[in-house]
């Protein structure tokens, strides 16, 4: 029999490479997490890469020792009479492989803690294309069953299943839910946060450039969960201002009837309203 190790290695290579080929080797369209479109996603991406590098070092180290042992010390007809020595342990070697993981964990823990604290603050948009720095926009996100409702308290606008944001500006999403928990996730712009009943969780996101990004719910909430998606349209500040103005003037008011309709379980197409409280 061929040493099992070699087959394993071959297998990993084949699977890994074909996956990369299939996914088109990092095109942003298909792998949003690995092609961040804003400062929040970017800082998370760097941590992902850093943790991956550390882990690949461990993988390589262990695999080398593993295959060495499997091949070198396999039973063969020639070593039939070989009686292995009884070895209790070796404190020097054991200390080494205790200390190395400790070092790796520390190397991972320090940037982890730093970024964890950073993400609570609004992102500093170093790569922002728009020069103007305005006050952050607050958008209340409410997950109803099974739709996403976005309220712009400053602009007095409500949208359903899509959200327009200005590029280069931090957005303060305030998440809550009227039913079960959901999770608000726009992979291209940054990691998720839960939308929970009776609790406002905050999520800062920012897009570098104008563009359209997919968002979805990541927490199972029942029948319509799989279709609980929305679009994030990032636009220039001027386009955004124009959209706000146009919406305030032309979009219908949110009626009591429509609001009741939204609170019932079900799926709806994107909607736009020029008020956030039902009348």
């Amino acid at each position, binding site marked *: *029999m061929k040493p099992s190790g070699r*087959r*394993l290695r071959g*297998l990993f290579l084949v*699977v890994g490479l074909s996956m990369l080929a299939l996914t088109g080797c990092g095109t942003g369209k*298909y*792998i*949003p*997490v690995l092609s961040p479109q804003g400062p929040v*996603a970017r800082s*998370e991406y760097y941590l*992902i890469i850093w*943790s991956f590098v550390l*882990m690949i070092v461990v*993988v390589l180290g262990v695999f080398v*020792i593993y295959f060495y*042992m*499997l091949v070198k*010390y*396999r*039973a063969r007809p020639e070593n039939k009479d070989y009686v*292995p020595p*009884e*070895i209790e*342990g*070796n404190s020097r*070697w*054991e200390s080494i*492989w205790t200390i*190395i*993981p*400790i070092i790796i*964990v520390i190397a991972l*823990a320090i940037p*982890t*803690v730093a*970024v*964890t604290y950073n993400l609570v603050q609004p992102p500093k948009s170093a790569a922002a294309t728009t020069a103007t720095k305005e006050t952050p926009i607050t958008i209340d996100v409410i997950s109803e069953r099974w739709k996403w409702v976005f309220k712009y308290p400053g602009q007095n606008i409500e949208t359903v299943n899509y959200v327009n944001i200005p590029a280069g500006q931090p957005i303060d999403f305030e998440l809550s839910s009227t*039913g*079960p*928990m959901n*999770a608000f996730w726009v*992979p291209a712009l*940054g*990691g*998720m946060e*839960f939308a929970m*009943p009776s*609790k406002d969780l*905050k999520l800062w996101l920012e897009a570098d450039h104008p563009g359209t990004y*997919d968002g*979805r719910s*990541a*927490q*199972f*909430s*029942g*029948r319509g*969960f*799989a279709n609980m998606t929305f679009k994030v349209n990032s636009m220039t500040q001027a386009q955004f201002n124009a959209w706000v103005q146009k919406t305030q003037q032309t979009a219908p008011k949110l009626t009591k009837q429509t609001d009741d309709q939204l609170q019932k379980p079900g799926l709806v197409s994107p909607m736009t309203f020029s008020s956030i409280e039902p009348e």
Partner: protein
Amino acid sequence: MLDEGPLIWMSDALITLATIGIIVVLTYFKLWKWLWDNWLTTVDHKKIGIMYLIAAILMLFRGGTDGMLMRAQLSWPNLHFLNADHYDQVFTTHGTVMILFMAMPAIIGFFNVAVPLQIGCRDVAFPYLNAISFWLFFAAAMLFNLSFVVGGSPDGGWTSYTPYVENMFDPGPGENYFIVSLQITGIGTIATGINFMITILRMRAPGMTLMRMPMFTWSVLITSFIIVFAFPVLTAALGLLLIDRDFGAHFFTVSGGGMPMQYVNLFWIWGHPEVYIVILPAFGIFSEVISTFAHKRLFGYAAMVVSMASIAILSFIVWVHHFFTMGAGPGVNSFFGVSTMAIAIPTGVKVFNWLFTMHKGRIEYTSAMLWALGFIPNFLIGGLTGVMLAVPPADYQYHNSYFLVSHFHYVLIGGTVFGVFAGLYYWWPKMFGVLLNERLGKWHFWTFMIGFNVCFFPMYFLGFMGMTRRVYTYPAGYGWGVINLIESIGAIGMGVGFLIMVYNIVWSARFGERDTTGDPWDARTLEWATTSPAPEYNFARIPEIKGRDAWWLMKRNGESINGPKDIPFEPIHMPNNSGRPIIMSLFFFIAGAGFIFSWWILTIIGLLGVLVTLAQRSFEYDDHHYIPVEEIERTESAAGRL
């Protein structure tokens, strides 16, 4: 039941046919009495272990079928093989069955099969309680499986987060099945934890100090502690949830001032240690298998014990990593992130000790060893992606995505399931006196291992591509379709591997090589000192332990397990069989059904039955017997050990 559609009707028909078939066969061959006397009423730990393992393999089939259904549904965009409701039920039962009704009984089965033999004693500390534990698990498993034909399965995920599982969003009996059957099996599991804790601490053969115990026994001792500390939390969480659902309380409903997060906390305070409950015994199995087939003693024994103990302690302070994205502050997330990463340190120590156990050894690639060796790279991938998940900001991107799905399948399959397979091939001769076929074993290993990697490795990429868990379908255009199709093909490979294992079991029962020596692997620990299968009393004379790897030492010194020839045997004190555990669990089943459907008369009947059977036991004075010396001599000489 009538409006469920052809899939369920077919299952109904098959279940009915199978039940009728079993009854007919048992009646035709007049096997009822044999079944009752030898198996259903037994308090023998070895037989209970075998029953646990049979149940676990059946449940692996059930959970695996769920998995295949899910893979079929997801294998291409916009499929309509299952609808959303069915898919939700299938992933919920898949997770619950695999963790609670497959992984748990499998490892507890090995506790029963191996531990009393490894520490040189005749039974567990509380044999009668042990039988109750098994039958409670069995009743719970039956109750849980019943859900899928009566009233609908639970559909809130195996974590069943509130508030989704509260009555207002998820009415009907489905969710009650989850709560009640976990509650019942949990009682049995706590009893098992206590049982093995006491067995190992109090019943070791003379001379077997703690630091001379086989590594599997160590893993069971530590696991038992985790069980005893973790499971009561689950009991509390499920109890509160049941009160919410059955009696309209508001522990976890916002509308009545309850806190859904409280459930999430309680669930994971149990749930995280739970994953170590199923992985640590697998570590123990790998330790035994690797040292046996490398023909060397385990490298760094003391470090292995310390590592396992620290993993157990750490397992209780990492639960928040399951919900980094639920709004805990950066301080909390940082603490739990770093404490989670810290688990990698003792785990790494263990991996290197296993690798160095093989150093200068002579590695025999038996089926059991293949599973142990396959475990190392696969678990490494699962463990390291676990460290990546422990970075909170990165977890914001991975949480509930397929990256997570892949991670926990790599650790649970690459760890626990591989461990169960390794244990099956390793201890099969001890359990049945027959070896499993090595050739088929290797086919089983390679098809399953390759299928497993093809199925789950691509999921890491799907996670980065934004696919979330528990979606029953997805539109075209995300690039997910081809990858999902590849995964489904891998799942078929795993299914084929499972079938080869079943065929191996059937084939070996008829044609397999008989184990006449009791020690087919030239192994090191005491269970291999007695015959295969071990006699009812395990050891005719309790052995004297002179060091670690006790049987290896005895073999080297040319000692017999029965000691010097001239000392006569003494009668052996053994517990009596009892039919009460199975009857008691039947009453638990009845009470459980009452709680599920809110039929209170049924509940009262069931609970009264439980109380009556408990009371009966306390008035039972004649609960043991002695095996006479002549019978011991007869058994031992038949095995050629006099």
